[in-house]
């Protein structure tokens, strides 16, 4: 299925597509989440060592993965924005940041509540949690920079540079934190190691991750629609959208 991607890079063409896909992925996300929750809370057997507390991984692992993936996708859109100078690429990067930050925060929260019953402490400075915390700071920095620059196109480019600089740093940060952690823990117990996986547990994690992916796509596409309307205010084609909106179609 060949799509002329460059034609899609105009906010005008992309807007209706974003709406349709947003609903589609939202429905898919709901289905997958439903199935995933059934597996997570009923079908998957209680773990021998961690008891029912381990069920938190069905939220924690997808959230942590999404936090990482979203940053990578955001960095790709940022590179496209700088390379091709397209407004829509920058808008996509802008739309991804809040969801990424929320995923990182959720990963930290659920990680803390998993850590307490399993290893006795809400927060331990293990490599993954610390890297996720720094990732959250990177997200918040990008969001803060965007809101502090008046001109939207300048903000686009500045945030794109910041996202790319951060992207290069994320593996370095992860590696350095892991190093730091193993040095100080001696025989390191990876505090976010999941219990030995039964097939159902793995299936549950995969389904929930897929649900998180679809949810992210749905929310980000809806947000980019809002951003398009906010930023393309001068464009004449938006007037036709007002009528659609009044009919509740858009």
């Amino acid at each position, binding site marked *: 299925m060949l799509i002329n991607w460059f034609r899609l890079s105009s906010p005008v063409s992309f807007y209706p597509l974003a709406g349709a896909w947003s609903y589609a992925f939202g429905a898919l996300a709901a289905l997958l989440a439903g199935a995933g929750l059934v597996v997570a809370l009923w079908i998957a057997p209680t773990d021998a060592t961690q008891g029912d507390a381990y069920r938190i991984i069905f939220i924690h692992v997808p959230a942590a993965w999404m936090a990482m993936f979203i940053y990578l996708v955001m960095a790709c859109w940022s590179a496209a924005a*700088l390379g091709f100078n397209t407004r829509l690429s920058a808008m996509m990067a802008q739309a991804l940041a809040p969801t990424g930050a929320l995923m990182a925060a959720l990963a930290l929260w659920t990680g803390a509540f998993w850590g307490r019953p399993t290893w006795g402490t809400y927060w331990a400075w293990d490599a993954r949690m610390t890297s996720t915390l*720094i990732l959250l*700071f*990177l997200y*918040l*920095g990008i969001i*803060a*920079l965007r809101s*502090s*620059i008046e*001109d939207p*196109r*300048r903000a686009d*480019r*500045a945030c794109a*540079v*910041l996202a*790319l*600089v*951060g992207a*290069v*740093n994320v593996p*370095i*940060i992860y*590696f*350095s*934190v892991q*190093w*730091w952690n193993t*040095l100080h823990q001696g025989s390191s117990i990876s505090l976010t190691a999941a219990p030995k996986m039964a097939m159902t547990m793995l299936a549950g994690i995969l389904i929930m991750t897929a649900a998180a992916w679809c949810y992210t796509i749905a929310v980000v596409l809806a947000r980019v629609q809002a951003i398009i309307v906010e930023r393309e205010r001068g464009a004449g084609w938006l007037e036709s959208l007002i009528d659609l909106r009044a009919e509740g179609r858009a």
Partner: protein
Amino acid sequence: MSEVPRKRHAGADALHDAHADAVRTTATGDAQPSVLGAIGWALARDFRVAVRSKGELGVQLLFYVIVVSLFPLATSPSREVLATLGPGVLWTSALLASLLSLPRLFASDHQDGTLEQIALSPRPLAALVSGKMAAHWLTTGLPVVVMAPLLGAQYALDAPVLGTLALSLLLGTPILSLLGAVGAALTLGARGGGSLLALLVLPLYAPVLIFGAGAVDAVRAGVSAAPHLSLLGAGLLLALVAVPFAVAAAVRIALD
């Protein structure tokens, strides 16, 4: 080449002379402005400007001394506690001191328009900002490198540890200047000032802090600091090569 008479700070006169220089040399057939020449020129100019306000430099160093001296008041004067805390405190304070001085890197040039002139110059912008960052390090990082071992004595750290401290800071503070310059360029003309700069730059500083303070801790524990220091060195080389281009891009974005 006449400049529009605007309120200039000390550096603008130096800039004017140097631009006249550039015109003269290109007129005599020097087609390619050399990279090293550009770095040297920017370094000399910024260094001269910084040295003219000795008070400001002194204050920054004093900040470092005060912060380092404050920690024992908050914790404990016991030698064991201080020796454990020492590397972390000395390193973290160096980070904060670096943050404090970063806005100075571009802000005053930006305010009176000399930054635009610099960007318009025929010399490569990446080289010019490299010179600026080098001058920043010489006036803020290097004093910290010299000061830290002296302050380390307050933390009951002995000679080999202090030597490693100085070496780790020597490798690390240039990285702080480099990475910090990215943040300083990106936040030019943005609201939120110093706090926004700190939010952007501190996560990037984390690996430098980990390896820098880790090196000192290693020597304190009697282990070799070679892995930490070589990683710091590698990071420095990588930053030296890559960061100036990111900073140049950020400066151009800010000048749009």
